[in-house]
């Protein structure tokens, strides 16, 4: 049991772990959207979050684990005015993060990847941080400020 904790501002949190199967991409989108909907976000905000999650989870599945099967983990937390989401894998990792984040860069053009995943995450969310190490995996942390939530959360609890 948890009593209080350091992060007193945190209203709710969840952690989801699933296999790196492509059928889980839509599952992850639905789950995170359902969780984020507690903040009473606008349709546009929810759809931005869904798209960004889809990019990060897809990357974990196809780049992180390539043809192998591993676990993808999604952590999400609701704060009074922001939604934080982290997508992690324990896959191959990224060598040059700066290069990877550039628009149109992809290491898998043969799979018809557009190289726009990180650009989409960056545009659709307010903050994007990528932590990665070769053979140790990748964690993508994204933050979206939800304007509408501040007064609404209290009401629904």
């Amino acid at each position, binding site marked *: 049991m948890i009593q209080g904790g350091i992060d007193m501002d945190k209203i709710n949190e969840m952690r989801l772990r699933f296999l790196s199967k492509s059928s889980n991409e*839509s599952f992850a989108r639905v789950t995170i959207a359902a969780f984020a909907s507690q903040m009473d976000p606008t349709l546009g905000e929810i*759809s931005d979050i869904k798209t960004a999650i889809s990019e990060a989870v*897809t990357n974990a599945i196809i780049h992180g684990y390539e043809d192998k099967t591993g676990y993808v983990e999604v952590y999400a937390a609701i704060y009074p005015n922001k939604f934080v989401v982290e997508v992690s894998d324990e896959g191959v990792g990224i060598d040059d993060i700066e290069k990877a984040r550039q628009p149109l860069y992809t290491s898998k053009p043969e799979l018809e990847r557009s190289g726009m995943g990180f650009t989409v995450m960056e545009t659709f969310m307010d903050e994007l941080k990528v932590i990665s190490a070769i053979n140790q995996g990748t964690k993508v942390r994204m933050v979206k400020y939800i304007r509408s939530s501040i007064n609404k959360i209290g009401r629904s609890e």
Partner: protein
Amino acid sequence: MQIAGKKINDILVVSLEGELDHHTAGEVREYIDNLLEDPTIRNLIIDMKKLKFMDSSGLGVLLGRYKIISRRGGELGVVGINTQIDRIFVVSGLYKIIKAYDDLKQALNDTGGY
């Protein structure tokens, strides 16, 4: 993902229903490329009225078909994209090479000079 295709003159019209992500990209790609083996097809219109979601995996599918079609001197058009997909188009600059139409009639009229 539900996919349907029909040929109108030298235009292939493909309708997508569902969500276009990495999981469904493969079947969409295969479906379209299969029909594109018909060499009399010059233009491609993708009807997205019933497509609820698309991410950058969908961009890859569109860009790949765009390459095939432009090699034939044809055009790629899309119909009825929603707000979420519009955002993806804007971010990626896709509007610079793919024409968007509100409805299929307009797209057919405009494509290939009909």
